[in-house]
């Protein structure tokens, strides 16, 4: 079930894994094009589109004005006509000005017109915090997008999944929101080849263990894994599960694990109220009620706008020690 099980060809960064996915899919299908702010000449704010303008030219790698609502809507229209736009939002924070195009057009068109046209649109956007970018530039809006039927949503945590999920998203006939993590672009790992797709709706077990199931999303997978390391030293074995795809959600893998461990902690980078963690918790309680030996632990960002000061920001974000403490609390083991 672990993606690492899949045949890994090379070891590259999460950033380069995304670039590979884009390059391969553009080579495969002429209907695929890239559009966004500074994706061409500037090669992307996070350099994910490096080299693509040179390779594919201005007709397929398009620098836009700072008009997110406009070019996301343009992407929806182009997708209705059968093209496969991959629209980059420089960050998830700027997707908010395009929320109406995403929620009222991309997510609704296939349904409200009775299935006459589909919207094979990919919206790539990095999110998360940790670089002192302060309140307006530190959002994790997994919950907002996952709330919306009509969208598909994934959040890769590894280079392998970044490549495999982005390729799947590009080939999918529905609008897919690919939530990347600003904190993971430099992360290195194995990636698959041109035909190694990662399906939507399949979680990955990142670490096996019998004492507590830790469900962690995107960058939090790594936070959870380092907490699991620490806990292992104290004799507490965590099973770390990465849902990878948030809509659809692989409840089976989550529930199977929790039924076995009887304990769960959820780790998210976003806010606690009406967040992803609350949703995962509610669904796990529903499916594992009789198996849970303790309430599910939730580790989220503090319920505050993100502060600039480094010490405040770090204390607002989930740290390995917070995860470890939550696991100790739900297992009743350890210090």
């Amino acid at each position, binding site marked *: 079930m672990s993606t690492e099980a899949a045949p890994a060809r090379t070891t590259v960064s999460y950033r380069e894994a995304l670039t590979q996915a884009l390059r391969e899919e553009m080579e495969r299908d002429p209907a695929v094009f890239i559009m966004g702010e500074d994706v061409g000449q500037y090669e992307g704010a996070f350099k994910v589109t490096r080299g693509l303008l040179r390779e594919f030219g201005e007709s397929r790698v398009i620098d836009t004005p700072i008009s997110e609502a406009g070019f996301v*809507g343009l992407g929806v229209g182009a997708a209705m006509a059968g093209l496969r736009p991959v629209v980059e939002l420089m960050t998830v924070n700027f997707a908010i000005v395009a929320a109406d195009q995403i929620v009222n057009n991309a997510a609704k*068109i296939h349904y409200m017109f009775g299935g006459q046209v589909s919207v094979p649109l990919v919206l790539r956007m990095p999110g998360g915090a940790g670089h002192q970018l302060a309140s307006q530039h530190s959002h994790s809006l997994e919950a907002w997008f996952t709330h919306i039927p009509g969208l598909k949503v994934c959040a890769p945590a590894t280079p392998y999944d970044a490549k495999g999920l982005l390729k799947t998203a590009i080939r999918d006939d529905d609008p897919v929101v690919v939530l990347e993590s600003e904190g993971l672009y430099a992360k290195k790992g194995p990636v698959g080849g041109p035909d190694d797709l990662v399906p939507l709706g399949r979680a990955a077990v990142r670490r096996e263990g019998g004492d507590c199931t830790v469900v962690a999303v995107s960058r939090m997978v790594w936070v959870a894994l380092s907490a699991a390391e620490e806990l292992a030293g104290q004799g507490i074995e965590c099973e770390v599960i990465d849902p990878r795809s948030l809509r659809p959600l692989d409840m089976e893998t989550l529930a199977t694990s929790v039924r076995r461990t009887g304990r769960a902690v959820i780790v998210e980078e976003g806010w606690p109220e009406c967040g992803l963690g609350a949703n995962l918790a509610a669904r796990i309680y529903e499916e594992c009620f009789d198996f849970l030996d303790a309430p599910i632990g939730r580790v989220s960002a503090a319920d505050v706008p993100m502060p600039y000061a480094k010490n405040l920001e770090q204390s607002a974000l989930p740290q390995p020690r917070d995860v470890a403490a939550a696991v100790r609390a739900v297992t009743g083991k350890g210090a």
Partner: protein
Amino acid sequence: MAKTTRTPEPRPEPAAGDRRRAGSAPPALPDADLMRRMFQAMWLIRRFEERAAEEYMKGHIGGFLHLAIGEEAAVVGTIAALRDDDPVTSTYREHGQALARGSDPGAVMAELFGRQGGICGGRGGSMHLMDAARHFYGGYGIVGGSIPLGVGLAFASAYRDEDRVSLTMFGDGAINQGVVAESMNMAELWRLPVVFFCLNNQYGMGTALERHSAEPDLFKRAEAYGMPTVQVNGMDVLAVYDAVSEAARLAREERQPSMIEAVAYRYRGHSMSDPDTVRDADEKQRWQARDPLLTFERILLGEGVLTREDVAEVVAGAERAVEEAVAFAEASPPVPEEELARHVYATPWSDDARGDARMPS
């Protein structure tokens, strides 16, 4: 198509729609057969909407019902000037666009009735008609929100090196949505084959043009992007036809987007639930006197394109078509409730949890 005003509409008291009043010499008339079909379409739309209003009162139609009665010239003149495969997008006030494109009146009425035989299977209703096979890409409910879609359809045409022109229709109130400005800039920046068609009926719901737009000459909005613009008499189907023909030519042959402002008037309230108390009676009467159907009838009789008998037959034909449409809608079965979650996704997955609504198929 210069950055100047054609067949200007002196507001608040516009001259009766008549292209002979146009500053420039009028272009030659479209051929008689086309004009006949345009006249038929205008009457079909008029009767269809009058009947829809009745059915709404009877409770056969739910939700919002926005009528374009009075705006038939702008609607039909536009569609008639386009090629059948030119993509068109519109607002929630779009029955006419679908009918003018040739959508089956029965399927449109059945959609208003929320039946399985509806053109969108009963999912969309009056505000969300679509006929993709006829390149009518839909009616949308969020003001301004459909305009970038129209630019996207133009983008696809250019990307594939096709010569299709995308026309997107919106109202005077919609021009104040920021996304319209964003769309115009991108269209001109990338020279996309799109026509921005603003059907200026001089009100956004209960708010008069002068009370919502600092500059009542709306075509000037597009000039800010260096785009050719024109203002036409939206009550004159031929004036609209001429303007759209030229705009389509510019887009098709020169990849030059442009904006048309068609000044018109709606004879009914914003929707069936609008008591229409804000607009004063005199104003309505003045515009009633310029009914686009009568204006066009005068021209057609004058040009000898139609006889009085022909006109009567056109009206009767529209009547029959609407009767049949209602009959079809009434006979159409309700949408099966098992289909609630159908069409949420084009490629659904089978979810392990919470029943049908979670299991699109």
